[in-house]
C-alpha cells in the first residue's frame, strides 16, 4: 500500500495523540469518498451553480502596457469565486467530506477572513455548525469579513494569545479540535497541517491549475512561460502550479511577503528566510529563532502573515523546481493600485504581491513572454487597510 505521509522529508503528523485516529479516519475517507461519482457530481454541480466556476482568464492588456508592453499578462480570475477567493474550492470540498463523515460541527482558522467566510458560507449551505478562530489583530484589520461570517451564522472567536494573527488562530482551532475531535471536523484553510491535510487541500485547490492549463492553451495556443502566485500557507500557489509541475519548461514562481524589512519578525518569507521545523503538525520551512521558538511575522496582508508554509512547497523548493522570491508591503500596495486603475479589478493584498513581482518580471523578460498570475481573491476587504496606509504623508519607497 503506497502510503506516505511525507513529501520528501517534509510533512508528517506531528500532533497530539488524541487526533491521530481522526487523521487516519480522514485519510481513509479521502481515499474512499473523493473518487466516487456521487461525490464528484455533487461537488462539481455546486461549484458551477453555487460558487460560479469555472473562473475565466483575463488577458490584461492595459496592465501589460503599463508594465512595458513586452509581456502578455494573463490573470486567473479567482476573485470571481463566490465569497471572493479561491478558498471556496477547498471549503466546499471539505464541507461535503465532513458531511459524509457525519460530522456536524466545523471548526476553522482564518487570517484575512476569506477562508472563514468561505467556510461559514459552506456551513450555511450544508447545514453544519461553524466556529471560526481569528486573531484579534486580524479581526481589526479585516472587519468587513467578520461581519460577513457572523451574518452567515458562524461563531467568530477572537484569539488574544501570541501575535494575535493566523498562527495563533490556528493554535486555537487545533486545541478546539483536540477537545471535540469526535464530533468536529477541522476544516484547515491551506496546504499546511498534518497529513492528509496538505494533500486533501491541494486536491481541491489544484482545480485552479487544471482549468488554467486548459484555458491558457485555448487562448494562446501554448503553455505560459511562468506561473506566478503569492505564498502564505501556499494553497493558491500549489493550486495553480500543481498541474504545471511536470511541464519542466514552465517557471514556477512563489512570491512571499517581504513585509517591512529583512529582519526576523518584520516579514513572513518562510521559504526565503526560514529553516525546516515543526509547526501545526508538519515539518516544513519555518520562521524561527535559534532556539526553535516560532518567530513573529509581519505582512500588510493578513492572509500571508504566517510563519510556516506547506510541506509540498518546501519539497519543490528544495528540489529546485520552485523559484522563491519576496515582495515588500509598499511594492504590493503599488501593484494593488495599478491593477485597480488599469483593469478595474480590486485584487486582494495577498495576490497583489504576485502582481508586484510580475511587474518586475515583465520588465526584464524577453518580448512575448507569457506570465500567468493567480489573482487569488478580491480586495474589497483590504480597502480600509490600503487607504489608511497610503494617506500617510511620507510614503517610503522600497530600496
Amino acid at each position, binding site marked *: 500500500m503506497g502510503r506516505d505521509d*511525507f513529501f520528501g522529508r517534509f510533512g508528517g503528523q*506531528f500532533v*497530539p*495523540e*488524541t487526533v*491521530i485516529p481522526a487523521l487516519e479516519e480522514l485519510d481513509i475517507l479521502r481515499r474512499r469518498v473523493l473518487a466516487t461519482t456521487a461525490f464528484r457530481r455533487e461537488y462539481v454541480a455546486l461549484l458551477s451553480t453555487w460558487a460560479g466556476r469555472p473562473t475565466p482568464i483575463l488577458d490584461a492588456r492595459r496592465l501589460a502596457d503599463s508594465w512595458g508592453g513586452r509581456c502578455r499578462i494573463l490573470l486567473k480570475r479567482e476573485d470571481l469565486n463566490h465569497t471572493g477567493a479561491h478558498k471556496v474550492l477547498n471549503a466546499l470540498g471539505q464541507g461535503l467530506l465532513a458531511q459524509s463523515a457525519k460530522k456536524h460541527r466545523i471548526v476553522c482558522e482564518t487570517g484575512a477572513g476569506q477562508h472563514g467566510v468561505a467556510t461559514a458560507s459552506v456551513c450555511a449551505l450544508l447545514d453544519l455548525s461553524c466556529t471560526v478562530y481569528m486573531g484579534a489583530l486580524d479581526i481589526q484589520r479585516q472587519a468587513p469579513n467578520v461581519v460577513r461570517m457572523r451574518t452567515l451564522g458562524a461563531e467568530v472567536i477572537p484569539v488574544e494569545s501570541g501575535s494575535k494573527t493566523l498562527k495563533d488562530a490556528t493554535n486555537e482551532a487545533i*486545541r478546539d479540535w*483536540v477537545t471535540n475531535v469526535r464530533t468536529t471536523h477541522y476544516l484547515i484553510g491551506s496546504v499546511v497541517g498534518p497529513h492528509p491535510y496538505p494533500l486533501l487541500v491541494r486536491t481541491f485547490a489544484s482545480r485552479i491549475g487544471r482549468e488554467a492549463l486548459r484555458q491558457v492553451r485555448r487562448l494562446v495556443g501554448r503553455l505560459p512561460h511562468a506561473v506566478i502566485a503569492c505564498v502564505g500557507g501556499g494553497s493558491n500557489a500549489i493550486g495553480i502550479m500543481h498541474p504545471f509541475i511536470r511541464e519542466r519548461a514552465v517557471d514556477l514562481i512563489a512570491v512571499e511577503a517581504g513585509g517591512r524589512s529583512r529582519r526576523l519578525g518584520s516579514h513572513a518569507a518562510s521559504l526565503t528566510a526560514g529553516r525546516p521545523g515543526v509547526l501545526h503538525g508538519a515539518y516544513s520551512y519555518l520562521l524561527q529563532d535559534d*532556539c526553535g521558538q516560532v518567530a513573529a511575522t509581519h505582512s500588510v496582508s493578513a492572509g500571508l502573515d504566517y510563519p510556516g508554509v506547506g510541506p509540498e512547497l518546501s519539497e519543490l523548493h528544495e528540489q529546485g523546481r520552485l523559484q522563491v522570491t519576496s515582495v515588500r508591503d509598499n511594492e504590493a500596495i503599488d501593484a494593488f493600485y495599478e491593477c485597480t486603475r488599469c483593469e478595474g479589478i480590486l485584487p486582494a493584498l495577498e495576490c497583489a504581491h504576485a502582481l508586484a513581482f510580475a511587474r518586475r518580471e515583465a520588465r526584464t523578460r524577453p518580448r512575448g513572454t507569457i506570465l500567468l498570475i493567480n489573482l487569488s481573491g478580491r480586495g474589497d476587504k483590504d480597502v480600509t487597510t490600503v487607504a489608511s496606509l497610503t494617506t500617510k504623508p511620507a510614503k517610503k519607497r522600497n530600496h
Partner: protein
Amino acid sequence: MSASSQTVEQAIRLRLESGGKALVPFLTAGFPSAACFVDALRQTAESGCDVVEVGIPFSDPLADGPVVQHASQRCLDAGMTIRRALDLIHLAHVPIPVVIMSYLNPLLAFGCLRLTVDARAVGVRGFIVPDLPWTPQRRQRAACARQQIFRPSEISEQLRIAGFEVILLAAPTTPADRLRRIGGQTCGFLYAVSMTGVTGTRNRAPFETVKFLHRARAATRRPVLAGFGINSVSSATLIAAQSDGVIIGSALLEALQAGPRASAVARLGRFLTNVRNALLQGEGV
C-alpha cells in the same frame, strides 16, 4: 553525574510495591522565576513525589491550555532556553528522576546529539514529546533509508538508543490495536491522556476516563499514569484508583503564580503533600 540513580520506571515501581500510587508533578522551566523554579523542583522531592516532569517553554504549545500557555510565554519573555533549563535542573540536584517535557521544534533546533549529551550530564532520565506521536518505526525507517534523509520522527528512536526513557502518550480516542503497540513501545510509564482536550481543563466525562484507563492498563506491562484535568486531591484520588498514578501540572503552576517566592513554594508543597497523603491512604479505593 546523575542526581537520581533510579530510572523513571524503577522509581514508580518502588512506590507501587510499597502500596502507594505514583505522583508526578509538572513544572514549566523557569516559572515563575528561575530561583523559584529551583526551589519548587526541590520541594517536589521533599513532598514525596516520585518523578518530576520539567516543561521546556514553547511559543506554540498545541496540547496545553491557558495556564501552561501563559507560563510558557512568561518564561520565553524572560529568556528561557533548553540550555538554561538544563542548568537549573543541574542546580536543583533533586534526588528523584527528572523527565523533560518538550515540543518537538525546540528539541530539533537544539540538535539531537547535543541534547543526549547535555541532558545526560545533568541527570535527565526521560523525555515526553507531546507532538511526536508513536509511528510504526519499520515504515518510517524504511522510507528514510530509501531516500537517505532525516525526518524529525527519528528523534525518539535516537533518544531511546542513547538510553533515555521515551514516554509515549495514549488518548481515549486511541483504538485498541494502536494502544497495544504504544503500550509495548513506551518506556518508563504510559502517559494516559485522561480526556480529549488540552491541559488544565475540567474533566467532563469521568466515566469515559475510567473506561479508558482500564483499556490502557490491559494494553501495557508498564505503569499507567494519567494526566490532563487533574487539579485537586479529590480528582487525583479518583483517577489514581483506576491507574498507577497521576500527573499534575496546571494546578501547580497556578499555585506558584502569585505571591512572594517562599509562600508560593510553601503553597506548592502543601498541595503536593495533601495529594501525596491522599494517594497513600486512598490505595484500594
